[in-house]
């Protein structure tokens, strides 16, 4: 009942002085403005073209509307019984019918031409600089940077939980301008680069749309679709899920942060580090079966091409099976070689400490090497840079 009285209070407030000051809310740059009347300011060429098209259509339609209804209201004014107008008898004319069939036909063709041009351009997703997969989940967005700078970066983007609570509380009190738009991890993209968004979904259909960028694409489970944008200015741009996806449909916003090329590179670097750090806890203490099982995979992916799956090597490639370095009780010898390379052997320091520890432990306990030695990630870390 409290909420109803609250409503009545606001109703009185509205009746008294109707303005946005009731909630003291401001415009959200890149998102909606208070009492916004038209489309968002365009940030991409496609969005600008959409604006132009919309104005073109609006003006054409309003002109036709006024023309047609001036005739109707003139008739209503002049041809009333109360002003003594006598009804005429005409009731058909093939000429007139043909004319007013052909004229609208020509008008719609003129409207379709510019629309075709924009549509074809907006569907051309080739030659993207960065490709990002946006996956709709109930109820968050997942982003995977697939190609281009930042490849490999992946994260989830979820509505800030305090905003969800504000919503439950009836959005009372001091509500921020980015209410329902604030996410933990915005999608970061470089400015003036063609960004291709591949959409898919994990559960039901969602739709990824950002009005300022002029994009909206359904995210369909089991299928991939794509769209693209090339943001022409930096800044924060906001969108929401546009396809009913269940109860939290209103709570899975999209926040696109467009940054300069340098900032983007820096962001990618930071993100890579964060991901590497997140991937495995370097302080974790492993047991032998677990670490060799993992090491087998790392070996297969990175080492087997040269050293062979049987560890015998070939030609100039030294064998690992029975190698004194591998079997040496001093684990740091092998760690050093793997980290820094030796002769034909390249350095492998780009692999994570855990992967390196795993692959070393694997070689120390496979084939005829039965050392029983276990290398922990911390030991690899300790040797880095030495």
């Amino acid at each position, binding site marked *: 009942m409290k909420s109803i009285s609250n409503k009545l209070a606001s109703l009185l407030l509205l009746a008294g002085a109707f303005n946005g000051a009731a909630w003291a809310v401001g415009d959200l740059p890149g998102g909606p403005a208070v009492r916004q009347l038209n489309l968002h300011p365009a940030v991409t060429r496609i969005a600008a073209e959409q604006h132009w098209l919309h104005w073109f259509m609006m003006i054409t339609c309003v002109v036709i509307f006024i023309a047609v209804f001036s005739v109707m209201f003139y008739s209503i004014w002049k*041809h009333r019984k109360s002003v003594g107008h006598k009804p005429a008898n005409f009731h058909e004319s093939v000429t007139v*019918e043909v004319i007013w069939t052909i004229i609208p036909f020509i008008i719609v063709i003129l409207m379709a031409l510019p629309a075709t041009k924009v549509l074809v351009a*907006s569907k051309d997703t080739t030659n993207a600089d960065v490709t990002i997969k946006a996956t709709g989940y109930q109820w968050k967005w997942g982003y995977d940077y697939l190609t281009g700078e930042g490849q490999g970066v992946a994260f989830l983007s979820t509505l800030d939980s305090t905003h969800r609570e504000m919503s439950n509380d009836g959005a009372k009190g001091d509500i921020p301008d980015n209410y329902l738009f604030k996410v933990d991890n915005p999608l970061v993209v470089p400015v003036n680069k063609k960004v291709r968004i591949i959409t898919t979904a994990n559960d039901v259909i969602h739709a990824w749309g950002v*009005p300022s960028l002029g994009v909206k694409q359904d995210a*369909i489970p089991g299928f991939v679709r794509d769209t693209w944008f090339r943001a022409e200015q930096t800044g924060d741009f906001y969108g929401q899920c546009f396809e009913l996806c269940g109860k939290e449909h209103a709570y899975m916003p999209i926040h696109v942060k467009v940054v300069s090329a340098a900032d983007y590179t820096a962001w990618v670097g930071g993100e890579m580090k964060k991901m590497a750090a997140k991937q495995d806890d370097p302080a974790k203490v492993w047991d032998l079966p677990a670490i060799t099982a993992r090491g087998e995979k790392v070996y297969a992916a990175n080492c087997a091409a040269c050293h062979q799956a049987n560890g015998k090597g070939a030609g100039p490639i030294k064998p690992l099976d029975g190698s004194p370095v591998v079997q040496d009780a001093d684990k740091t010898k092998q760690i050093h070689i793997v980290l820094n390379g030796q002769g034909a052997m390249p350095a492998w320091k780009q692999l994570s400490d855990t992967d390196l520890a795993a692959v070393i432990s694997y070689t120390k306990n496979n084939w005829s090497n039965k050392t029983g030695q276990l290398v922990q990630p911390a030991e690899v870390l300790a040797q880095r840079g030495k």
Partner: protein
Amino acid sequence: MSAVLDHHGHDAHDEHHAHPHGWRRWVFATNHKDIGTLYLLFSFTMLMVGGLLAMLIRAELFQPGLQLVNPELFNQLTTMHGLIMVFGAIMPAFVGFANWMVPLQIGAADMAFARMNNFSFWLLIPAALMLVGSFFMPGGAPAAGWTLYAPLTLQMGPSMDAGIFAMHIMGASSIMGSINIIVTILNMRAPGMSLMKMPMFCWTWLITAYLLIAVMPVLAGAITMTLTDRHFGTVFFNPGGGGDPVMYQHIFWFFGHPEVYIMILPAFGIISQVVPAFARKRLFGYASMVYATSSIAILSFIVWAHHMFTTGMPVTGQLFFMYTTMLIAVPTAVKIFNWIATMWQGSMTFESPMLFAVGFIFVFTIGGFTGLILAMAPIDLQLQDTYYVVAHFHYVLVAGSLFAMFSGFYYWVPKWTGVMYNESRGKIHFWWTMIAFNITFFPMHFLGLAGMPRRYADYPMQFADFNAIASIGAFGFGLAQVYFFFFVVLPCMRGQGPKASQRPWNDPDGKGAEGLEWEVPSPAPFHTFETPPRLDATATKVLDARVQPEPHAPAVHMPPPQIQPDGSKA
């Protein structure tokens, strides 16, 4: 309950055979007029139920934040509002109009299949109970939107099955109703009424009935596949098993777009009857109206994917659907021009039916233009699934279909009940409805342009003001319809009000409403045109009074016009 009853009992010539009285009259009804009344009352009830849900939606959206309902219930409200209004209110209401008016307008004694007519009405009751009752099932009503998109429907609780079953039954009812209307119109026209002399309302309903028969089975197929996906392990739409959720949308909208015209073509028919009557001038371009209606119906089958521009079709597909959709604007424009040409040089008066008809033309055209804007795929990328779409389809469904039904109600209610409604109340109803409607839905265009998505239980603060305005308008709009029922409909049903003459819309010189329905007394006797009437050359007048002797005791001063001698000149 209706004044329709009051007279036939006194007239021996009506009483060829006994027909049931009391509740049996309605449950076993085979008379097209009784069934028409049942349909209209049923659909008005559903309009109130669906309207109540709309009021709850608008109350929740009055302010940002969640106040009255949780998001889960909110989705149930929007879903059920759509389903109830489309399948429970608008479609049955037009069937009600058809039941009442088609036999009267073509000079037939009744509908072709009177018992099937009864069955198709009474099927609606269990369907409606099941649909509305799904609110009380575990997990609540279906919440996947009225379009019931897969795979969200696969996540729904048992109420989804109830909803699907209810829609199957309503679909069966619609198909039976359509068969009845087609057979009646094609076979039971009075001698001399060729197809091209038929009233426009019959024409639009004939075309609508074909559309219904063509697409209701498609809907049934789509929801049956959803049902088997849910329970019998099929994977038509379930991506988990290789199904295609977009295929559901294609099938649904192959039904859904003709469905849009199913809901508007009979409205065009009513407007085409009302405008000439109050302009005192024949409908301009009758033939072109018929052709325009047919073209709209045919085109409606090849535009469906304009509802799906954001699903990611190939560019050629999008272009095709954009072009065909824009093409529909042409025959629709022709209809608007014809109505205005009908008014031109007429001698117009503005009683409630005409007010609603002019209001229809004016506001429906706004909805038509926003439809044209939405048809442009690049703009649709901005507006798809926003409030712009909500504004658009309420402009064509409320200001379109509903206004036309109000117009038709005021136009024919004297014939149905034998009493005139109160004209001032009709005018109040019109202006109240018109103003509240625009306050409700016009701001939604701005919300949509600003990117507010539809089906949102809560929205960013920047959208607050327009939502508050829309909510206030909606409450006013809802209240106007309650007023309409208690102050216009109910008095007419109770027979309160001045007695209606046989031709309430005709001047003494005979100018005004034309058509066979005005050749029978007011209220229309229980049985009409039991012998096929002999018609004049225009098929708008009955030549021999043999069929329709005036059944009333003559009124004191104003005897209802007898069969006009001037009508027999031709």
